[in-house]
């Protein structure tokens, strides 16, 4: 049985979530092949060929794959993937968009967001905002799976020497077109691979006040995160949302500032190694999961923290 991993990339670089997915694929046993569908994406295929454990890279290079639109991409994944025992993709917004479509076209279930592989047909996945872990066994001939990055280490990006084969484009259903995107630009590390994250909640009060978070993040070389409430209030863009219905993170250090600790937020960060909570309400549930809790007003604590870290 071989495993097909669908690479996530921007036509220039391979996204790190693909490396965690390759580690999950290795736990299934068998050869690992990586499908790179893109436009002028050979550099991505070359990067994928160097990842340890990859036997073969399949490159589908065509203008219809310039953006990962679910309709054409799922037809390609089905055409290529039919002969595999399993098809895996990272549980990113791209993977979540495309993989259920692939599964339905193959008439198999999709297994979402696995955090462990028990055996080639049995997986562990969180349900109810991570308040329960379900072990599920698939009866289908092809396992179609999205992989939670925090559940698996990244495969080494160097050391492999896979062959690269080109594959032709599949049909283009031509029912959807890419219109545009607004990608947030930041000098800070990416949330899902950051070693340290400083997050702010509704208690931050405004977009302006998030500068206090940024000042601390910059001292720590950290990424900035947020709760759904902070995003909804317009303090920060949606791509910073952490939680059940946002990003899942597990950094070495997570600093939660003015965050109450709702289960939907905890779902996205409670696997962090060390959690710090700064909140003026000593009863806030976030303190129940924090390794270090500081009951304080953020307007005092954050400037002080930035200063202390510059010492």
């Amino acid at each position, binding site marked *: 049985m071989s495993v097909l991993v669908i690479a996530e990339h921007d036509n220039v670089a391979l996204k790190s979530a693909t490396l965690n997915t390759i580690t999950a694929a290795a736990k299934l046993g068998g050869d690992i092949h990586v499908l790179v569908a893109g436009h002028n994406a050979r550099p991505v295929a070359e990067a994928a060929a160097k990842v340890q454990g990859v036997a073969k890279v399949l490159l589908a290079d065509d203008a219809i794959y310039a953006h990962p*639109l*679910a*309709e054409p991409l799922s037809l390609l994944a089905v055409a290529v993937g039919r002969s595999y025992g399993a098809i895996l993709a990272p549980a990113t*917004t*791209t993977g*979540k*968009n495309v993989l*259920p*479509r692939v599964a*339905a076209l193959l008439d198999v279930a*999709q*297994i*979402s*967001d696995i955090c462990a592989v028990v055996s080639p047909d*049995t997986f562990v*996945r*969180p*349900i*109810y905002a*991570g*308040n*329960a*872990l*379900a*072990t*599920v066994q*698939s*009866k289908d001939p092809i396992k179609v799976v999205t992989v939670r990055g925090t559940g698996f280490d990244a495969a080494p990006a160097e050391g492999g020497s896979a062959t690269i084969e080109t594959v032709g484009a599949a049909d283009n259903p031509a*029912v*959807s*077109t*890419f*219109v*545009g*995107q*607004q990608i*947030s630009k930041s000098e800070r590390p990416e949330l*899902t691979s950051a070693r*340290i994250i400083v997050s702010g909640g509704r208690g931050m009060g405004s977009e302006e006040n998030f500068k206090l978070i940024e000042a601390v993040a910059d001292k*720590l070389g950290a990424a900035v995160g947020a709760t759904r409430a902070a*995003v*909804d209030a317009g303090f920060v863009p*949606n*791509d910073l949302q952490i939680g059940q*219905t946002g990003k899942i993170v597990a950094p070495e*250090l997570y600093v939660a500032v003015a965050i109450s600790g709702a*289960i*939907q937020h905890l779902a996205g960060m409670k696997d962090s190694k*060390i959690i*710090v909570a700064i909140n003026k309400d000593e009863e806030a549930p976030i*303190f*129940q*999961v924090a*390794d*270090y809790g*500081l*009951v*304080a007003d953020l307007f005092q604590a954050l400037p002080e*923290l930035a200063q*202390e870290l510059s010492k």
Partner: protein
Amino acid sequence: MKVLVAVKRVVDYNVKIRVKADGSGVDTTNVKFTMNPFDESAVEEAVRLKEAGKASEIVVVSMGPQQAQDTIRTGLAMGADRGILVASDAELQPLAVAKLLKALVDKEQPSLVLVGKQAIDDDSNQTGQMVAALLGWPQGTFASKLVIDGGKADVTREIDGGLETVSLSLPAVVTVDLRLNEPRYASLPNIMKAKKKPIETVSPSDLGIDVAPRLVTLKVEEPARRQAGVKVASVAELVGKLKTEAKVI
């Protein structure tokens, strides 16, 4: 334009669920059930399309036990016109729900299907994409903005890097995020009116769909609990502990 909205009955998001002692699942006896929050946003969007003169009829569909009627009534009280209950006491996994939805779409011929991006119980995030695949329709997932105009749906999608806009030719499936809108509360007169709106009940076999689960749940466990830590008295103490005790900075 007819709009079909799928609404799931789920354990209310405020309930702290408990795993059954025998590991067979989550204990749902005597807990509060509500409409999946994302589906409330889907119904709200449909009602706004109708108010804007873009939708002519809104059909809400729920699949599950008889009590899912209540979820349908909620949708009707928000402004939907009629409901369909696919009654089943069996476990319905996303592929089965998608097949049932497709069968209803074949019958009802809507131009737009709205579903939530994710059910907060199974956290699958699959059904909309699957029904779009089965129908051969385009999909706009994780929508925070929807513009319907001239046979097209422009969908702004929340993606990991920010926002993306795609244009879909109708008919299409859109899965909605909570930021799409602020769902209304049903007024008392509308709740009363909803009691008179029709709900049709069908079974999976009426629709000719095999809903047998493809995934078997072997066990359900509680995740490892975090130990509550210590309170520190000052920022200086915090930084000290992070440096020398936790060694993370």
